[in-house]
């Protein structure tokens, strides 16, 4: 098919589309919905001591950093699928994630004597489940939202999206149950987040790809 004919066909079969909102707005709405979902998740899985843990500044401070990181990472993910956007959103996203990781690690530092408790902390398995299984519906929703954009940097979009969600589900896991020690929290939660991140980055090129052109009967 020659190019003139392609243009003719694309113009003839053109269907109206609703322009996407600005990445910041999309990120804001997404994180708002995700926070509501995580709140419901915590309420459903509520365990004794939830109120006291919620009021503990040592527990709460990293979660506030997680919320900020989630917002910045979601903004970076949504900006990465819009052509022509500057890279500043990605830089801010990376800074937010770095700040959250720093806060999480700093809060998790514990005396060396507690290292032995790491593998004995059975309930950490449940924390991992909360992080991974709890993230699944959010990942599906974010994937669908990102697919509406242009897959210019699929791996970056997936990485930021995964971090945005993992930071929130990790917050749920941290608030949900007291841990044997902070180091075990760092190791188990960190590993779960890493698994989620790697899985998303590996799956990204298959999920976020140039899709068929709607209505034209052609593929991009």
């Amino acid at each position, binding site marked *: *098919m*020659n*190019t003139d004919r*392609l*243009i*003719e*066909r*694309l*113009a*003839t*079969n*053109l*269907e*109206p*589309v*609703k*322009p*996407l909102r*600005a990445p910041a707005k999309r990120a804001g709405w997404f994180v708002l919905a995700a926070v509501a979902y995580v709140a419901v998740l915590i309420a459903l899985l509520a365990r004794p001591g939830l109120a006291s843990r919620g009021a503990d500044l040592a527990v709460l401070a990293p979660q506030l950093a997680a919320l900020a990181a989630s917002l910045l990472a979601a903004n970076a993910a949504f900006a990465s*699928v*819009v*052509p*022509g*956007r*500057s*890279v500043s959103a990605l830089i801010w996203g990376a800074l937010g994630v770095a700040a959250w990781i720093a806060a999480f690690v700093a809060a998790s530092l514990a005396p060396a004597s507690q290292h032995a408790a790491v593998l004995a902390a059975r309930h950490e398995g449940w924390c991992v489940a909360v992080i991974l299984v709890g993230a699944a519906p959010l990942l599906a929703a974010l994937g669908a939202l990102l697919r*509406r*954009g*242009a897959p*210019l940097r699929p791996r970056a979009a997936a990485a930021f999206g995964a971090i945005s969600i993992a930071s929130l589900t990790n917050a749920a896991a941290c608030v949900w149950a007291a841990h044997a020690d902070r180091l075990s929290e760092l190791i188990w939660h960190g590993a779960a987040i890493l698994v989620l991140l790697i899985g998303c980055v590996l799956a990204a090129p298959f999920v976020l790809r*140039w*899709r*068929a*052109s*709607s209505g*034209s*009967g*052609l*593929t*991009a």
Partner: protein
Amino acid sequence: MRSVQENSVGSGKGYACRKLTVGMTANDTRDHELGSLMSAAQRGDGAAYKRLLETITPRIKQIVRRQRGFAGLAEVDDLVQEVLLSVHAVRATYDASRPFVPWVLAIVRNRLADGARRYARTSAREVTFEHEEDVTFFSDETNEQTAELGDARALREAVEALPAGQREAIELLKLEELSLKEASERSGTSVGALKVATHRAIETLRRTLGTKTR
């Protein structure tokens, strides 16, 4: 108000972007006008969309030629069409409050990079074959010099001998290369019926031409 040049350079790999913007500066392409055409296209205005694509296509072709100097005409055309299809697929991502040119250049750059990766992959697997004689097969008896002409004539006759419905389906879908939707509108037949007619026509042609291979 951001300038187009500033935006496109600031949006990524500076050198590549500057090279790409050579053929698409703010003055050249009347960014605002192109943006308005794209906004109209988002609302479903086919005429505006056609005008937009016709305006940007020569410039995209220029960029592709400059970036892929070694590519043949057919490959340049393929890449240009790929870019146009990508623009079409993600037209919802265009924000009317932002300049149009950086938006389209980001797509061009991405598709060119994809094309280069694809080229690197395929060329790594390709083996150059230099043949001295214009033959298809090694053995002489299997080389039919007039096979193409004979087949074309036989095919034409076989198509003409098809029942009217099947012939129309084949002509619209395979010879004119219309989409199912277009062929359905042109012939007044449902998409399903067209698919069935095409399938039957191909079966009939296979039988008629004696080609049992699939």
